[in-house]
């Protein structure tokens, strides 16, 4: 352990690499997560997100580089790391035969939560996820959303410094998704818990304090979503007109803008869409039916850093993996 800054940050990752045989899953990544931050890992399947989270959670050993959670090294101080993190996996890891309360009780005992604070702690986290009145029901009677909420509660029983959420809202209905984001906000504001989550939902990545965009085992960009999007710099303008061909020609001649038709709509990118609108109405002789200006999304950020869309990256990562296995 070197440096006090490393002690202060909740997560410190330096030159982290992981190889599985010929597959270079993580190719040397560096980042830090501050205490109380909600940090999102965004990228297509196969980008190395799951491998990174597995290393941070002490479930896989890095091939090179280092990682520390709350100042503890994930390789040399494994148990200390485990006591300081809460984990919510994509698949349920609850004991379905036991009651909700019993699941949390066993968890608290395994993690060595003192018996005099455990009952109070369990009530607090179960009330937070709105399951206190169902505490004596067997988990097998719970819906998918209730199970996920219970897992989040269980991950908090031992009051971890960092809560890891691997695709926390995957397969959930929109209402439960927004409920879970409510908890994440509450955790940050009321308890100062650091949250590290992976997602491939753009709208969820937008809600993080900072996002790391990962592709093909590397981090291609890190920063607050707004900053990343500002770096892309261009708004997307979509235009519907009575005569698209004439409109495109007019755009080229009068405004020097190259536009294309995507999904029956004229589409082009400009640095500032709103400032363009008055000129657009003034100079375009073709009748305009509708105009929309969209700020760049993280999708555009991903595209600008990797030259491909998330969906295409996912498809090629899949074929690369199957190719490597052969």
């Amino acid at each position, binding site marked *: 352990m070197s440096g006090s800054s490393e002690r202060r940050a909740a997560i410190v990752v330096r030159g982290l690499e992981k190889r599985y045989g010929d597959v270079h899953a993580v190719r040397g990544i560096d980042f830090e997560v501050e205490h109380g931050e909600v940090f999102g890992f965004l990228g297509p399947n196969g980008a190395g997100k799951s491998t990174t989270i597995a290393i941070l959670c002490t479930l896989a050993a890095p091939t090179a580089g280092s990682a520390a959670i709350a100042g503890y090294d994930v390789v040399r101080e494994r148990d*200390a790391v485990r006591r300081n993190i809460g984990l919510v996996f994509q698949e349920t890891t609850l*004991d379905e*035969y036991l009651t909700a309360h019993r699941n949390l009780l066993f968890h608290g005992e*395994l993690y060595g939560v*003192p018996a005099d604070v455990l009952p109070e702690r369990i009530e607090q986290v179960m009330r937070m996820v709105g399951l206190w009145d169902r505490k004596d029901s067997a988990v097998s009677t719970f819906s998918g959303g209730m199970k996920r909420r219970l897992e989040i509660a269980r991950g908090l029983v031992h009051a971890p410094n960092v809560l890891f959420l691997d695709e926390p809202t995957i397969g959930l209905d929109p209402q439960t998704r927004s409920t879970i984001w409510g908890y994440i906000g509450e955790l940050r504001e009321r308890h100062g818990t650091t949250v590290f989550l992976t997602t491939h939902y753009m709208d969820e990545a937008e809600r993080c304090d900072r996002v790391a965009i990962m592709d093909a085992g590397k981090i291609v960009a890190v920063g607050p979503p707004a900053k990343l999007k500002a770096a892309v710099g261009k708004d997307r303008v979509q235009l519907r007109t009575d005569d698209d061909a004439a409109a495109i020609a007019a755009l080229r001649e009068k405004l020097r803008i190259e536009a294309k038709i995507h999904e029956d709509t004229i589409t082009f990118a400009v640095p500032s869409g709103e400032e363009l609108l008055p000129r657009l109405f003034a100079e375009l002789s073709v009748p305009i039916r509708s105009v929309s200006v969209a700020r760049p999304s993280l999708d555009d950020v991903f595209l600008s850093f990797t030259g491909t869309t998330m969906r295409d990256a996912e498809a090629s990562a899949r074929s690369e993996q199957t190719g490597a296995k052969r």
Partner: protein
Amino acid sequence: MSAVAQRNEPPEPRRGGPSTARAAGLTSDLRTIKVVWHRELLRFIGDRPRLIAGVAQPVLYLFVMGTGLSAMVPVTSGVPFRTFLFPGVLCMAVLFTCFFSAGSLVSDREGGFMREMLVAPVRRSAILFGKCLGGTTVGTFQGMVMLVIGAIAGVPMSLELVVTVILELLVICFAITAFGVALAARVRTIQGFMALLQVALFPMFFASGALYPLSGLPAWLVALTRLDPLTYAVAPLRHAVLDASGQAALAPMVTWGGFVVPIWLDLVIVAACALVALAVALPRFSRDDA
């Protein structure tokens, strides 16, 4: 709620933060064993079909098969055939109970709960040990149920018999669960475990002499029975049961050539098998990366 969990816990260093001070290793191990053991009991009690099957199957064997076969085998050296059969049926009942208990390792993996245990800041050996103690407890409990069924079936009982059988079962059940855990540590699906049950458990049971005397067998079967660890589990139980009928002399002891294996050595062999099984299970289980 548990004395174990309260012991020597350092006060929390930070506002609601985790106890970062390294909890004493032994305290953590005891806590882990207690949690895994407790869970095993809750699972056993909560599983009605398993409880019913645990009673129904031995009753079937003892009353129906025992009665039917005794018509065919009228004299078993002066001991009623049912009494002779009882230790074998007792052994079978605890065998299945313990083995299914070990099998929960497989269903835990399938259901995902295994991951919750594997990522906890606890030692894997403590998890395994708790599992074996859980199997020992439910297996011994099953044995006690069997004693009640035996008494109803007319097998002579005594306090000494009950105490002896329970003590012997503690060793035997631990060994059987450890054996089951060693097998289950590698198996990924319940179907796979059931297949192992067919391949490993039934031959072991049939070769153990649980259902027939150990003397007067053809040479190949003699060799097979002596190699079967379960033989050394059945012999002490049978000796205890026949002793209570005042027929200890008739209890078929295990013999190696001319050497009669004493009861204590039977149990030592069973205990040694348990240690071997644990030694096999632990590295298998530790390599498991959740």
